[in-house]
């Protein structure tokens, strides 16, 4: 049996069956990927459907309600009833809409959300469709294509609500993409690869999830991920009280549900990336020792898949939990958090992580503490090294808080623009803040 980079070792009995019909190359490069793609697309679609159900149930529970209860036991078939309703609904196109753009935008949105699943490692071995060596870069670039769909949808609708929503969401997604990209770098310094499977195996070989090394990175990534997905408390693009429904105001029926699907799939994507980067992906302590080491390979993969799904579900619950707890931000607060707090946090985190890694390496070079055994592709930290890194991570939170509060100490001052105009920059007393002159009657 051929071992390829696309597929490591598929289950043998299916492989033997396929080899009777196709040549070995066809099986490895065409048939198996198609099977995997089909399985993943189906699984993710069903998962996204049930995410809507879970969201409705959880929101109901948090408000002392029951949620959907009528279709099936405990309303479990509600997602399918919804899908059926949306499929048979009339698909309206507004007058003077740019018809082709209007009709095409949902497909871009849903494709951008689903393509990413090609590189996400759901498990070891056959649990991954393809292991691209620039996986993380691929994910980031594809998920930014999603913004394009929103802009196209909002612009082509010929509606002011849709246009305003699209403008807001593009501004928001562009500004939070920066902090998202920067927050990842800290974890990449430990993983030393952009391949998502490589990041997981780096955590596996360290036996430490990167969330312990990178608490700040995780925090920044999660916040900017929530903002990136336009979810509450960052759901300004679809603020019901102001913009009706934002960019998809004019959409109905199946096209609307494609946007809805894309939103939930994008949530799953961000959760999956956060899981892979910070929560150890499919890695869980002791699973390897009790399954793979004793020869139960398929069991190892399946348990790893379950571990990954459990972590993913936990992060999705966090999404719902935050949505039904926090009120929506004001628009200026949203930009404030993005540019004044999250991006500096990510930058400070990069510097601190670099210092930490340099320190550990330097300590190793002096032959004092034995921390790094070798400069291999992943940092092989010893126990002491791990402890130092975790300590750096925790101290880093306090340092960053100090730095940020220093940067933003004047950020909350009233009417900053006016103050800047009035502040005299000569004859300043040393060590005292600049003071605006007394108000003139205007």
């Amino acid at each position, binding site marked *: 049996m051929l071992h390829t980079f696309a597929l490591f070792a598929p289950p043998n009995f299916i492989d033997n069956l396929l080899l009777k019909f196709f040549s070995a190359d066809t099986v490895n490069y065409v048939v198996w990927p198609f099977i995997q793609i089909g399985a993943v697309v189906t699984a993710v679609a069903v998962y996204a459907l049930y995410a809507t159900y879970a969201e409705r149930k959880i929101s109901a*529970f948090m408000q*002392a*309600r029951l949620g959907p209860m009528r279709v099936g036991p405990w309303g479990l078939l509600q997602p399918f009833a919804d899908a059926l309703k949306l499929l048979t609904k009339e698909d309206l196109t507004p007058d003077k809409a740019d018809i082709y753009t209007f009709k095409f935008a949902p497909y871009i949105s849903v494709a951008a959300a689903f393509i990413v699943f090609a590189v996400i490692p759901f498990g070891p071995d056959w649990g991954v469709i393809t292991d691209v060596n620039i996986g993380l870069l691929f994910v980031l670039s594809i998920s930014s294509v999603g913004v394009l769909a929103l802009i196209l949808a909002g612009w082509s609708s010929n509606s002011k609500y849709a246009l305003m929503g699209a403008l807001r969401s593009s501004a928001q997604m562009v500004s939070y993409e920066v902090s998202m990209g920067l927050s990842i770098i800290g974890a990449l310094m430990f993983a030393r690869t952009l391949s998502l499977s490589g990041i997981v195996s780096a955590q596996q070989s360290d036996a430490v999830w990167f969330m312990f090394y990178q608490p700040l990175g995780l925090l920044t990534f999660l916040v900017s991920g929530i903002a990136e997905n336009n979810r509450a408390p960052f759901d300004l693009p679809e603020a019901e009280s102001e913009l009706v429904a934002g960019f998809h105001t004019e959409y109905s029926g199946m096209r609307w549900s494609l946007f809805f699907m894309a939103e939930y799939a994008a949530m799953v994507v961000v959760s999956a990336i956060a899981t892979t980067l910070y929560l150890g992906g499919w890695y869980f302590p002791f699973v390897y020792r009790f399954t793979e080491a004793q020869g139960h390979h398929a069991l190892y993969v399946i348990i790893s898949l379950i571990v990954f799904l459990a972590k993913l579900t936990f992060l999705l619950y966090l999404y719902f939990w935050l949505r039904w*707890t926090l009120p929506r931000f004001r628009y200026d607060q949203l930009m404030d958090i993005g540019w004044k707090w999250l991006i500096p946090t990510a930058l400070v985190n990069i510097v601190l992580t670099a210092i930490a890694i340099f320190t550990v390496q330097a300590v190793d070079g002096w032959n004092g503490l034995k921390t790094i055994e070798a400069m291999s592709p992943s940092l092989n930290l010893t126990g002491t090294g791990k402890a130092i890194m975790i300590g750096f991570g925790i101290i880093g939170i306090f340092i960053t808080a100090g730095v940020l509060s220093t940067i933003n100490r004047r950020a909350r001052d009233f009417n900053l623009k*006016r103050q800047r105009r009035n502040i005299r920059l000569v004859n300043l007393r040393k060590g005292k803040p600049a003071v605006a002159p007394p*108000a003139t009657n205007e």
Partner: protein
Amino acid sequence: MPAVNVPKPTLMEKVKRFFMVDLLKGLRLTLKYNVGAITDKDAVAGHGIYTEQYPKVRPDVAPRFHGAPRLNMDPETHDTLCIACNLCALACPEDCIDVIAMDIEITVAGKARRKKVLDEFIFDTSRCMFCALCQEACPTACLELTQDFELATYSRAGFVWNREMLEQGRETVKYTK
């Protein structure tokens, strides 16, 4: 420039802000409701679910609630308990009860007597205000306002209940799901 006096945060407030205490408090509250909804099934105490599954599960109405009228019958003979005394019609402030009686010949101890018995009983529920004064007036505990509350019909005429409806109860669609 209007002077806005923003008080400086104390050390305690700064620490609270740093550890996001208020955010965590909010999260704890919603989690408490979520866990309560899953675990606490009887719902009323604590943070349970307050939703009633109405057509599936009948709600408990208050004991003093008055609903649909009913004419009770003798449980053994299945004859009506009504003696056509007309007291309920007299007691009704809305004048929505009509008792129509008739005389019949009976023999009591060998002698022919005439007796007034109930022929038809008209109860207009559209005018009834469910004060239950008729129930208070009834000497034989025949007329009773029950706790049944589903009185809606498709026509005005449907609100006028005759004797059969009052004795048997009106047929309603029973939803089980």
